[in-house]
Structure formats: structure tokens, C-alpha cells
């Protein structure tokens, strides 16, 4: 059995999760300081990939980064980067689809922090950097971890946008999700079943991990949440 789809899926999902982790937290923290109208507008844009069909995300991506689109052709000419039909183009598609999950859970965690902590830290002369790294982040660890696991799960299961941007090239862009579809189309049900079982196994592990994280996080937070 060729294990490439699994390795590729894991590779794509891991990199996309790392990207969404930092971008999601950065966006969630930055948006709190914006004026209300801008906050509302940006929030809509940042959450959009969650409600749009992934194929629409894929369509937008193709219209911007494919070698036929202005940006895509510029990147190809100037740097030799081809952002479609490669394994790393899946990273881009997956990161965009998974981003809102990280962003929204991170924002929810930040909003649950007592605003008094930040105010108090400011009167104590603590810097913005210190407040973010030593007070805000540690106190929403559980929420951020849950958001990360959720993004990873979503990234691993991404099909629509990925298949549009990377297609299905065995040994180069194939992921578990696109492989299952391809095998079903070829009528190779036996092999498709094996991949389905593998995917089920991974999903179960992720879900159990998330529940454990949330339970532990909940217990740790309860007494301190004044």
C-alpha cells in the first residue's frame, strides 16, 4: 500500500495548523483594539471561509494564484513559484479554510479573560508585550489548544478547496481525502475502505484529544475565573 496520501495529508495539515495558529491568535488579539465598525467588518471577512463552501474558496484561490491569474503569473515569472497543482498549494487552501476556527476560538478565549487583568497590568507599568505573553496567553491556554486541535482536524479533512487547487496527482498532491474520492470513482472499494478506516481512526484520536484538553482546561480555569 502506498502511504504517500497519509504522509502528505499530515504534512499539509501540520503546516497549515502552524500558520493558522499564529495568524489566528494575532488576528484575534489585534481585532479587540479596533473601533467597533471596523471590528464588525473584519470579523465577517475573517469568518467567511467557515460559511462559504470550500469549493468557493478554491475558486477564489484559482482566480488569484493560478498561473493564468495576474498574481499567480507574477509569482511564477519572478520567483518560479507555482502555487497550483503542488503539495504546498494545498497548505494555502487548507490554511484559509481552517483559519476561522482558530481565529474564533482564540477570540472567544481572549474575550473571556477578565478585562481587569489587562487594566491592572497597565497600572503596574507592565509592557504590552509582557501582558500578551505572560498574562493573556497563559490564561487562555486551554482555549488556544482546543482551537489548534480543531483547526488541525479541519485541515486534515479538507477536500473541496484542496482538490480544486491541487487536483489529484498520485505521489505528488494526493491526500487521504482526495484519494478516497479517486478510489471510489475507479470502483476500487476495497482500498477506499482501508483509507476510510484510517481516516476514521485519526479523527477519533483528534476528537478524544480535544475533549481531554477541554476537560483539563475547564478544571484548571474554574477556581481562578473571578
Amino acid at each position, binding site marked *: 500500500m502506498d502511504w504517500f496520501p497519509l504522509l502528505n495529508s499530515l504534512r499539509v495539515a501540520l503546516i497549515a495548523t502552524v500558520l493558522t495558529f499564529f495568524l489566528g491568535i494575532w488576528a484575534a488579539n489585534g481585532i479587540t483594539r479596533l473601533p467597533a465598525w471596523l471590528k464588525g467588518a473584519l470579523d465577517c471577512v475573517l469568518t467567511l471561509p467557515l460559511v462559504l463552501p470550500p469549493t468557493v474558496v478554491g475558486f477564489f484561490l484559482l482566480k488569484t494564484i493560478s498561473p493564468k491569474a495576474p498574481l499567480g503569473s507574477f509569482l511564477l515569472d519572478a520567483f518560479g513559484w507555482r502555487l497550483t497543482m503542488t503539495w504546498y498549494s494545498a497548505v494555502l487552501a487548507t490554511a484559509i479554510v481552517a483559519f476561522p476556527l482558530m481565529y474564533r476560538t482564540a477570540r472567544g478565549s481572549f474575550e473571556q479573560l477578565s478585562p*481587569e487583568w489587562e*487594566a491592572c497590568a497597565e*497600572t503596574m507599568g*507592565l509592557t504590552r508585550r509582557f501582558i500578551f505573553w505572560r498574562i493573556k496567553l497563559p490564561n487562555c491556554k486551554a482555549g488556544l489548544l482546543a482551537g489548534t486541535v480543531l483547526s488541525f482536524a479541519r485541515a486534515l479533512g479538507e477536500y473541496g478547496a484542496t482538490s480544486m487547487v491541487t487536483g489529484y496527482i498520485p505521489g505528488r498532491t494526493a491526500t487521504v481525502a482526495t484519494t478516497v474520492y479517486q478510489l471510489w470513482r475507479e470502483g476500487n472499494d476495497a482500498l477506499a475502505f482501508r483509507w476510510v478506516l484510517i481516516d476514521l481512526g485519526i479523527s477519533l484520536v483528534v476528537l478524544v484529544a480535544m475533549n481531554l484538553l477541554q476537560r483539563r482546561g475547564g478544571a484548571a480555569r474554574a477556581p*481562578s*475565573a473571578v
Partner: protein
Amino acid sequence: MLQARFEKRVGDFRLLVDLSAGNETIALLGASGAGKTMTLRCLAGLEKPDRGYIALDGHVWFDGEKGVCVPPQERGVGLLFQHYALFPNMTVRQNLLCGFRRDTPRRQRSAEAERLLERFCLRGLEDRLPGQLSGGQQQRVALARCLARKPRLLLLDEPFAALDAHLRWRLEQELMTTLTSFEGTALYVTHDRDEARRICGRVCVMRAGRTQPPEDVEHWHSHPATWSAAELAGFENIAAVSRTADGMAALDGWDALWPGDHSDAAAAAFRAEDARLEADGGSETPDGKDFVILCRIIRTSGQETICAPLRRPECLLRAAPDRRFAPGDTVRLCVAPGKAVWLRGED
């Protein structure tokens, strides 16, 4: 020396503060929603007033005209939050260490942190997280953390509101000891007049976003000037003066005529503890010495007696407890003229 004179609008609410204080503990007293916490936040630099002036010991923190607004990090204020705002991810010691000025050398910080742990009876708790402390211990940590940077202005936002009643008394004694040795201005926000009386020398009353001129707390307590001041000072019985003539003031609310020249008074008030009950002798002005209201007892308890003027049964008066009478009895409620307070109209 704190000088603050500023204005801030938040929606329909208008905050108008005019307050100066020396090295003393001064109470900022008002009902909830009067703007006390907002005042503290403006002084600490967490909110920016629309216009005005704030200075401490000659250092200008805010000047609307010159566009000066020193950020909270550089004001060096000690702000004790109602819920203490201890950082839950840090131990008691780490919380304390956060409180020092940034330019304090590391070694000096830890030495002073140890001293603070000692002084605030936190030995043995230094490695605990705030979630593992009792409310009283949390307050001590928060106060120690406030004092770590040796502030010249200490702002205390209802420090006992989050504590059980039985814990308060002891902690109050501790806080008073701390405040006595504190060199600077302490502003004590509270809605509890008794607390203000015990802890503070002067009181600044706040009502609907406006500060009243600070006055001596005992004088304020016994001689409130206006109806709202009397309410805040705990006068249970207040009625409007409807007219004055022939040396008598008519109190319609109680249907009583009280002697004396009170032509400039808008209302009269007395405390329940100053209202004595006597068996009804028939006449309302027998000896001419006391102010008298003829009443019927409604309810009695060990704490107070509730009664209603005979001709105004819908109006309830509160008098000192008196177990000699039972509900339904007719009594004379007597107030010594010295104990009644005549109030002027609101500003």
C-alpha cells in the same frame, strides 16, 4: 497632593469631577452608577477624560488643553480592584514581583518581595496560585502588589465588596494599619457610609456623575446639607417642608407642624435611633420641647420600630426599637430639636 478637575462623557452619562486631596485617606462615596469607578479609571489613566486637568504632587498627568495624557504605565498609581485582579497563572510571589517598577534591580525586587510577604502575613503561601487562596488572602496579595511600586496615589475600589461579612472586620483593621503608614493620597471608593466613617477622615460624595466638595466625614454624617446627602448619610426619615409661617414649618408628608424659623429649609430629616416613642398622652405639643408626630405602630423588632403617622397611614416612619409597644398602639414619636436636620434644596 492630588488635584483633579475633569469631565468625561460616556453616552448619556456625564462625569464631572472636582477633587483635591492631600496626604490623607479620603472616601469617594456614592450609590452604584454614580461614576466612582469611572473616576478611578480616569485617575489611573485607563480612561481619558474629554477635558480638564489631573496632577499629583506637581506632576501633570492629564491636561486637556496642552494635550498631555500620561499613560497608566508611567503614572505609578496603586489601583486595588474590586476583585483584586490577581494574575491566575502566577504564584503569589510572581504576582508580587510584577508589581515593582521596571527599573528596580532584580535582587532588590526579590528582597523587597520577601519583606512584603512578611508584612502581609503571606509566608507559606508564596508558591500558591491565587485560585488556591481565600478571599482575604487574595486581598492581602493584591494590596501588597499595589504597594510594591511605592505609589504616591492609592486607589481602592470597594475592597471589601467581594468578601463575606465576617471576614471584613479583621481585614478592615489590617487595611487601616496599612493606610496609616501610607505616605501619599489614598482614595477609598465605597457605597457604605459606615465603612467611610471608620476608615476615612474626609468624604467626597458623588451623585449622578458629579463630585460634591469634600468635607469632614463626621460633620457630613451629622449635618448633611441636602436631601440626597441625608439619604447617603443614613437618615431614615426625610420629608419635604411644604410651607413655613408664624414660626412653624409644615411637613405634609408626616402631617406635622414643627416649631422654629426654618423659612430657608426645603426638607427635614431625622435618624431612627433619634426617634423616641412615648405612650399617647392625647396632645401633640404637650411641653413644646420635642418635635412630635402622632403615630400608630405597624411593626416592632429588636432592630427598629415601624410606625405610620395617624393621618398619613401610607407613610412609614422608622424609630428606635421599643418593646413596650405592640402593633396597633398609638404613640407619640418624639425627636429632640437638636437631632432633627433641616435640609436645603438640591444644588
